[in-house]
């Protein structure tokens, strides 16, 4: 009945959305809802990073730095200018797009894994500049505050206003905000992946020579995917800042970057639903491993290496892999979509 992959994915997204809508009505515990809110944030980051990394094949590790830019821009706009948080978040997302285009222009001339290390180095420099900045920009009551917050970061820059609206149940408001953010980001991903832009991105990934020969400008389209995915990444960072009410240099932490990267790789690079599956699985596993926190790093390393080696297509690709292994053709090949995608 549902033949086109676009319709299939949109239907899945909407069904999941409706199911998640009901969660606060069924289980009101704050723990579950805040945990899911954080999941929404990481799922958005993972799905947007997947657009760059998996769909377009650009090996960028700048995504967490962009996430941090979104968070910092929100905090700074709200703290220094006194902007309302929703407005600050939107503006911060646009700032993130601008920053991503600058980074993209510098890095996309390189190729493959060399993009990875330069983007990683740029994130590192941003971290060092924030942490090593000790000159006072303003001096609020609590003491000295550098321009970028220094090692302490920002706090008390306002909230989303759900505390006034729902009182002690404010986290339900955050839950729904996160859910809407994830739905918007996922619909955006589906539109890109199945749309004409997705075709161009995959073309540049799979056979850059042929794509160039057909007149596709590599730089231009890679900048496109860089900037587009930065919007929701910045927005996720902004929402992270609003949800927790603090922004600090931990946003640049390499461990966090690896955690999100592991989500994408475990779920399936370049697939539509892989990053979400990976995010759910890894966050669940991480919660379970909390009691043996000493082994967390080793666990993530093992999962990361093991999944790349054993399941090249990620968990989302396993079914496909097995059916191929038995010598059958899968009944509905996931790619490629028709040339005239109705998006």
């Amino acid at each position: 009945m549902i033949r086109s992959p676009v319709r299939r994915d949109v239907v899945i997204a909407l069904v999941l959305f409706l199911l998640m809508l009901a969660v606060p009505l069924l289980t009101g515990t704050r723990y579950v809802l805040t945990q899911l809110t954080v999941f929404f944030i990481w799922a958005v980051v993972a799905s947007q990073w997947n657009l760059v990394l998996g769909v377009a094949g650009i090996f960028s590790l700048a995504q967490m730095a962009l996430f941090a830019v979104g968070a910092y821009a929100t905090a700074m706009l709200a703290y220094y200018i006194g902007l309302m948080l929703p407005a600050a978040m939107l503006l911060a997302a646009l700032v993130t797009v601008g920053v991503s285009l600058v980074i993209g222009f510098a890095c996309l001339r390189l190729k493959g894994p060399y993009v990875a290390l330069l983007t990683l180095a740029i994130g590192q420099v941003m971290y060092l500049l924030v942490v090593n900045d000790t000159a006072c920009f303003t001096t609020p009551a609590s003491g000295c505050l550098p321009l970028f917050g220094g090692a302490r970061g920002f706090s008390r820059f306002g909230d989303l206003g759900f505390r006034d609206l729902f009182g002690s149940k404010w986290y339900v408001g955050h839950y729904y905000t996160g859910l809407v953010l994830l739905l918007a980001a996922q619909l955006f991903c589906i539109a890109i992946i199945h749309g004409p832009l997705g075709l161009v991105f995959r073309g540049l990934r799979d056979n850059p020579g042929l794509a160039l020969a057909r007149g596709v400008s590599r730089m231009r389209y890679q900048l496109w995917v860089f900037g587009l995915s930065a919007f929701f990444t910045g927005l996720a960072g902004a929402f992270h800042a609003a949800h927790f009410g603090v922004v600090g240099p931990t946003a640049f932490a390499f461990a966090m970057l690896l955690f999100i990267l592991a989500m994408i790789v475990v779920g399936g690079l370049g697939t539509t639903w892989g990053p979400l599956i990976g995010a759910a699985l890894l966050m669940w596993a991480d919660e379970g491993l909390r009691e043996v926190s000493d082994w967390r790093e080793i666990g993530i390393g093992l999962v990361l290496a093991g999944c790349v080696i054993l399941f090249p297509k990620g968990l989302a690709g396993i079914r496909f892999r097995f059916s191929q292994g038995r010598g059958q053709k899968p009944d509905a090949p996931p790619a490629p979509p028709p040339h005239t995608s109705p998006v």
Partner: protein
Amino acid sequence: MLNMAQGGLLALGGYIAMWAMQAMGWPAPLAALAAMAAGAIAGGLIFVAAARPMLGGEGFETRIFIATIGIGLMLESAILKTFGPQPQAQSLKLEGGIMLGQVNLPWQNVLIFVTALLMLVLVAGMLNRSRLGRAIRATSMNRDAAQLMGVPIRRIYLTILMLSGALAALSGIMISSMSGLLPNMGADPMLKAFIICVVAGLGNVPGAALTAFAIGMLEAVIQYIFGVQYAFAILLCLVIAVLIWRPQGVFGHKEVVRL
């Protein structure tokens, strides 16, 4: 291939050397050899566990990069669990120095300089002159064509990983003798080494040596003029400017893409 576990191998070498001298009481040359052997074995294990199953598969470059990130993370965590998080001093170290006019030159720095130069000459000579070096260069230029010409690429990858593991361990000893031992001490040198390779143009050993020297000097000058905290940032901006000007690196040749 890009090996992101290189930083972990650096730390491994440093810690093994310290452990061999402190816990086992071995003399310094033996400790250095032990560290290099450990690095080589770790490199060999990376080949067996990650590179061999993936070779010839789709997206090798991307997948090996992610897999070695995971392996490096495990290696560093294992070192952390074994030796603890406190910074430690490297035991393998020369004391004293020589006065050249007004300048005190520690023997340690002389040793590092001589060792580094020796290793560079050996690696460059091996790559440019020997049969093995030719096979390595052929594999890096075009893996498929090299294999068709009878180059045993699996053995080449194994050799290269073991060799780079041993060299990383040796560099780890030298770096830790100046700055001390920490489980994550390899991250910064690895990032810098990579930047140097990209700026020089990949696969060019003399160019990389020259660039490393130039970047080191430049960093020292920037630190002196602007302050330590801005050195890496300014350096990176310069690097980005260079790469926009010459994406193939200063000493690299423009790549011709064939379909």
